[in-house]
């Protein structure tokens, strides 16, 4: 995303996602978990994807990997990786790309590794499969990778089982496994959430170093704005299955344009702020993305999603300032290309609104 997507004359970005939709059919209806998501990403860049639980971050990650169960999930839209169309690609083709050109680091290193096989075997497995190397070469490669991710005595530890490693070390193993084939796209789904804070920093540093070394593009999914601030180049804020704001990380964090992004930033503790001062949560909860089964035509006009109008409206403190009254209720705001936010407030309205309503604080006792 170093070049604004869609600008005339720019070549296709390395990863290009257009109008991605992921729907799950359940007994109660269809869940529109990702509802028209678009973004692009260049090699060597890191895109931070942030949002609350249930905003569709992980579902997006799995869709990029083609890991959704085809029986329960419908994935539509376009995911182009270096010109290869991934959505709807045959399983065989995806198998050749997965672990090879696209790799994923999962959230919980305690469950992401198989307890029944040595870490060496698990790291070597995709290498042997994708490069046609022998098992011996695979083992050597595993030792090399374990060393690269900073595991001491890799030649000895290669034959250990995951339960013989600490949580942070296991995440290093997962990362080694993801990078073993030099993937050009690495998707990290909350890679540090399950780890304690000191280990978090190490893992993020490691990811940063490896990205430079391998020149991979990284999609970093997290709910932690601190993580994004420290590692990402660009940021995409997701809400209710859609992107609501995007831009270079500094700009988005310093000068958020969407009320939701602003809310997220207000709910983060800062070292510089008064420790007595309460954090400001965003009131309410994200909307349900379920469309119940009886299709009675009451769906939103814009693409059949579950929501009519702005999904953030019920939690928004600024909707009263939008001109034309009901627009927030009836018209779903569109995220403009490049830097911008999916909000009906104009740039000027937003500036005055955010300035006047300096942090709405709950009353102190």
């Amino acid at each position, binding site marked *: 995303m170093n070049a604004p997507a869609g600008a005339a004359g720019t070549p296709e970005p390395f990863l290009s996602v257009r109008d991605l939709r992921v729907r799950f059919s359940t007994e109660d209806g269809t869940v529109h978990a990702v509802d028209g998501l678009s973004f692009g990403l260049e090699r060597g860049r890191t895109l931070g994807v942030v949002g609350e639980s249930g905003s569709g971050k992980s579902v997006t990650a799995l869709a990029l990997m083609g*890991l959704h169960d085809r029986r329960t999930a419908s994935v539509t839209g376009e995911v182009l990786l270096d010109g290869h169309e991934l959505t709807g690609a045959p399983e065989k083709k995806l198998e050749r790309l997965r672990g090879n050109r696209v790799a994923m680091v999962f959230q*919980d290193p305690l469950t992401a590794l198989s*307890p029944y096989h040595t870490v060496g075997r698990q790291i070597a497995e*995709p290498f042997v499969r994708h490069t046609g190397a022998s098992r011996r070469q695979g083992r050597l490669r595993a030792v090399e990778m374990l060393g690269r991710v900073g595991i001491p005595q890799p030649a000895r530890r290669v034959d250990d089982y995951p339960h013989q490693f600490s949580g942070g070390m296991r995440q290093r193993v997962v990362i080694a496994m993801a990078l073993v084939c030099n993937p050009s796209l690495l998707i990290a789904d909350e890679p540090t959430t399950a780890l304690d804070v000191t280990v978090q920093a190490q893992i993020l540093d490691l990811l940063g170093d490896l990205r430079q070394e391998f020149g991979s593009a990284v999609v970093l999914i997290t709910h932690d704005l601190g993580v994004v601030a420290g590692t990402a180049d660009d940021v995409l804020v997701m809400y209710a299955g859609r992107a609501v704001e995007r831009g270079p990380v500094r700009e988005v964090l310093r000068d958020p344009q969407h009320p939701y992004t602003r809310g997220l930033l207000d709910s983060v503790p800062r070292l510089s702020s008064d420790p007595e001062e309460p954090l400001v949560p965003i009131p309410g909860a994200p909307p349900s993305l379920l469309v119940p089964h009886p299709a009675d035509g009451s769906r939103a006009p814009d693409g059949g999603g579950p929501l009519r109008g702005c999904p953030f409206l019920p939690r928004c403190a600024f909707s009263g300032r939008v001109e034309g009254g009901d627009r927030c209720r009836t018209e779903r705001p569109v995220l403009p290309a490049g830097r911008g936010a999916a909000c009906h407030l104009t740039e000027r309205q937003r500036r005055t609104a955010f300035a006047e309503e300096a942090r709405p604080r709950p009353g102190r006792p």
Partner: protein
Amino acid sequence: MLRFLVRRTLGAAAVLLLISAFTFFLFFSIPQDPALLACGKNCTADAVALIHRNLGLDDPVPLQYAAFMTGIVTGREFAAGPCPAPCFGYSFANDRPVFETLADRFPTTASLTVGGAVVFLAVGLGAGMIAAARRGTATDKVVSSVSLVLSSMQIYFLGPVVLGVLVYGTGLLPSPSYVPLTEDPAGWFTGLLIPWCVMAVIFTANYTRMARSTLIEQLQEDHVRTARAKGMPGRTVFFRYAWRGSLIPIVTIFGMDLGSLFGGAMITEFTFGLAGLGRLAVDSVIDIDLPMIMGVMLFSSALILLCNIVVDAAYALIDPRVRLDAGSSA
């Protein structure tokens, strides 16, 4: 491993000791004189007294128990002659050495068990795998409902039906019987085929349902998803990752089933008129035949305990997180 085996063997010995004491003392609470049975018709009071003396039934029960238990370890001297270790005494009912009878009956039970287990494991686990791999499809629904119906079937119902059709009706197979494998392999096979299959039908359903549900659970594990994310093909993911994780519960249940089947499949043996350990157990109780009851009881219990030890050792092979020598679990 050695420490594990020693510890578990000692534990098993303690369990066997408890079972033997319980059975022995329970026997003497039966309001029935075993000597009367041994005496037969036209019994006189003198004859009963003689039998009492010969069998040592006049001694205090704890003394009899001690003599019996030492006999197992060291052998025993009887009026009729020496009985070498392991001596479970002579049957009250037919005067044969108990151990000899056990050794006679065991091959029938073992053949029944091993053959049945091969059938129900192959069919049960296979069907379970297919159902799990095609979860939600028509195949899965058919397999699941058939196994539900079969699991509520009973051997004493299904057995006679199958016998009626395949043996008496069409004469496709000979009436079930046991011929030692070493004497006549073909006869051994055809003679036990019906019991194996009928027994397997009952067990198969359990294994199908268990294999299906644990596999479905495993297929949703994070590490299985990781394997897919590495680009491993579906078959590898299924067998190398998901199946491996399903083995523990399956092995657990299999060990329990195998142990109890080795101890005698009573209903199967009665249904098909086979003389195995299960039959022997029932007969010995009906005959109030103390040495035989003790013999069958200890033999079956020992087999169950042995299976348990083997299963626990197998855990360590399946799951590297299991450490046998770690102490705590008995």
